[in-house]
């Protein structure tokens, strides 16, 4: 087993010490690498996931906000599907083992390099030995840190994404982990800064197609009335939604159980409480509660940046 594979088998856990790292570097000639000084609340490796494996009970996982992941990759010249770091709310501290080029996108996060403020959605140069620090995001929930060459932990079933529900893929980052960085692509960074808007702190509008089980509700259209609030029960699996008293409840017309059926990213599954769960990238492959509607795939990226306490409004998609 090569050094890199051995490290992958340990999935970048804490026990990487100097001796082991030396062994790696002997094996893999001058592999670029980045060291995790502090992971923040939760940082996982994510790419665009492992689609096409539902039949084996394997979910897609992958970056919750795919648009921000691919933007970060484009900034550093990577192909869009390279693995990067998904950082919940910030707090990540990285130290460059070798000269690195990075970009931070997604949640609006203060970024500094060796204590000096640096750009968000910008190409960052991190000379060997220097430190990149993410502050606490001001808006949005998930920041993405791409490194030129990609995070090169060994793939599992064709993807480097961590599936937090299935426990598949590389473990969440821990302090002391050393992540190998892949070979730089031929494409150089083409632009210093991508002028994109930060995620909003206000209400987020999501388009929803009703079904497949809208007929199990007395008034599925109640979903579109007023606003919903994301509760603290919010992770990569899903976000539980609630709404103030006085707004129409999402009542099920029948309590008869459905046989478990497949669910998808963006599905709004409604347990008997009437408080829907909006499924994220690590959603279960099947579910038993009825799905009243599904958020359009293009809007799932917006949903991934909504924080607990923030409002969501759903709008019906009609036709096509």
């Amino acid at each position: 087993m090569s050094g890199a594979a051995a490290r992958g088998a340990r999935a970048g856990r804490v026990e990487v010490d100097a001796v082991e790292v030396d062994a790696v570097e002997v094996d893999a000639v001058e592999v670029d690498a980045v060291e995790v000084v502090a992971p923040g609340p939760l940082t996982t490796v994510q790419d665009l996931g492992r689609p096409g494996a539902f039949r084996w009970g394997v979910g897609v996982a992958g970056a919750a906000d795919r648009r921000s992941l691919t933007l970060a990759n484009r900034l550093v010249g990577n192909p869009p599907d390279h693995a990067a770091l998904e950082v919940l709310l910030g707090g990540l501290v990285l130290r460059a083992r070798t000269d690195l080029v990075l970009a931070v996108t997604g949640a609006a996060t203060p970024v500094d390099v060796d204590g000096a403020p640096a750009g968000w959605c910008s190409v960052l140069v991190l000379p060997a030995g220097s430190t990149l620090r993410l502050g606490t995001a001001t808006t949005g929930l998930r920041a993405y840190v791409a490194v030129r060459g990609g995070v090169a932990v060994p793939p599992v079933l064709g993807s480097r994404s961590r599936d937090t529900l299935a426990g598949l893929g590389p473990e969440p980052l821990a302090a002391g982990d050393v992540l190998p960085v892949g070979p730089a692509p031929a494409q150089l960074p083409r632009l210093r800064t991508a002028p994109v808007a930060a995620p909003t702190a206000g209400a987020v509008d999501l388009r929803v197609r009703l079904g497949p089980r809208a007929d199990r509700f007395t008034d599925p259209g109640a979903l579109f009335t007023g606003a919903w609030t994301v509760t603290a029960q919010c992770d990569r699996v899903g976000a539980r939604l609630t709404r103030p008293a006085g707004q129409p409840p999402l009542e099920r017309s029948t309590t008869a159980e459905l046989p478990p059926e497949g669910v998808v990213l963006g599905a709004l599954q409604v347990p008997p409480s009437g408080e829907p769960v909006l499924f994220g990238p690590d959603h279960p492959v099947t579910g038993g509660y009825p799905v009243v509607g599904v958020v359009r795939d293009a809007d799932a990226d917006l949903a991934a940046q909504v924080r607990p306490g923030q409002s969501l409004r759903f709008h019906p998609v009609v036709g096509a």
Partner: protein
Amino acid sequence: MNGDLRGGGEAVAVLAALFDPGSFTPLSDPAAGGPDGVLTGHGTVAGRGVCAIAQAPGAVPAPAAVDAEVRARALAARTGRPLVTVHDATGAGTARGFGELVRGAVALSGVVPQVAVVTGAADAGRALLLPLADVVVATAGARSALADPAAAAVVTGRERDAAGLGGAELHASATGRAAHVAADGAAAGAFVRELLGHLPSSNLATPPRLPVEPVADEQPDEDLEDLLPADPAAPYDVRDVLARLADDEDAPLELHARYAAGAVTGFTRLDGRSLGVVATDPAVAGGALDAAAAAKAARFVRFCDAFGVPVLTLVDTAGFLPAGEDDPGSPTAAAAQLLYAYAEASVPLLTVVTGRAHGVAPFVLGSRHVGADVVLAWPRARLSPRDAVAEVADEVADEVAGGRPGPGTGEWARLVARREELAPPAAAVVVGDVDAVVEPGRTRAHLARWLEALERKAVTPPARRHGNLPL
């Protein structure tokens, strides 16, 4: 007479907070036998005359009330006084009345400052009167929508009441038509009072100048530089910089703060003089200009130009929003409006390049070639056709296409750093894009001297009906 301004709802609260105590004199007052639904009059604001029209809540104006409004507008025109209109009524009255109000507003445009305050509803035809004012201020509960809610629901499939179609929140953020949202009528009146303090009574007057200590006697502001990150792409709040350039370190009186936030527009004071400010905000999308930001800046520059307020432009921008011509936010058309606004302006135009100024975007932000009287640059300014990363990518593209390996990470970083060094502002002085490189801490003194020198700037416009602004 300000006894008339006690009680009587939000509209009257606006006037009470706006006018100097005891100065309001009614022209037409329902309580004194005037037509119902409108109170008009004049008074002083910080000692200068201002005319006002306030509608009673909910009333549909009768023809006689419209006549009273028209008369108050005529007084503002004849006496060269700013006009404040407070909107709180649905319906346009008779068709004749509506047309008279529109003609009155258009005739006053660019002659006296017009400020509209919405405290209640300005729906249907009244919604069209608001954008004719120079500045629209709304209270939190105000609304303005042209469409009938029932008709809109049939067409869009979304049930929205009038507030949902055009509430104050929506106009502050999504449409940008409300320049400011105040908590209530009194707060709105206080805002308008401060705003009028930056404007002349009419196009024939000059904005008031406050007595201040001479700027030349000040010590250089050594701390200003500490606000600015070394990384040219790092964000900072340009409002902090604007405050340091202002008298008493006052924050600018911002208009449209929550709309198109990549461009900051507002009024400030320097050496006691009123100054309009247009600044890109590097904290918002890299200070890039999209359609909304360019249009917001263009309207503000023309507003300043109409009333003789000098314009200070601060430039630190990632450039235009890169977008296809048919993409939402594509800046081309609005950027042409902004170019037109600067090129046409006859007021003193002062520009400070504080950071990134790559490509064509700086040309539409107070460029010397488009009419700025002076362009200063800070040492951190970077003026080159493209940013260093883009330049290196171009430079190396040919090598890579020729089959040679591209630079490694370390070498690439060195190439980018060398490019940065090749674009210092001194080079821009040589080619004439910039007049002088100044230390941030000395900028106030430079600007004060230039404002003095440009005090009597006069431009004779060519004889024509009017130019054709690319609307």
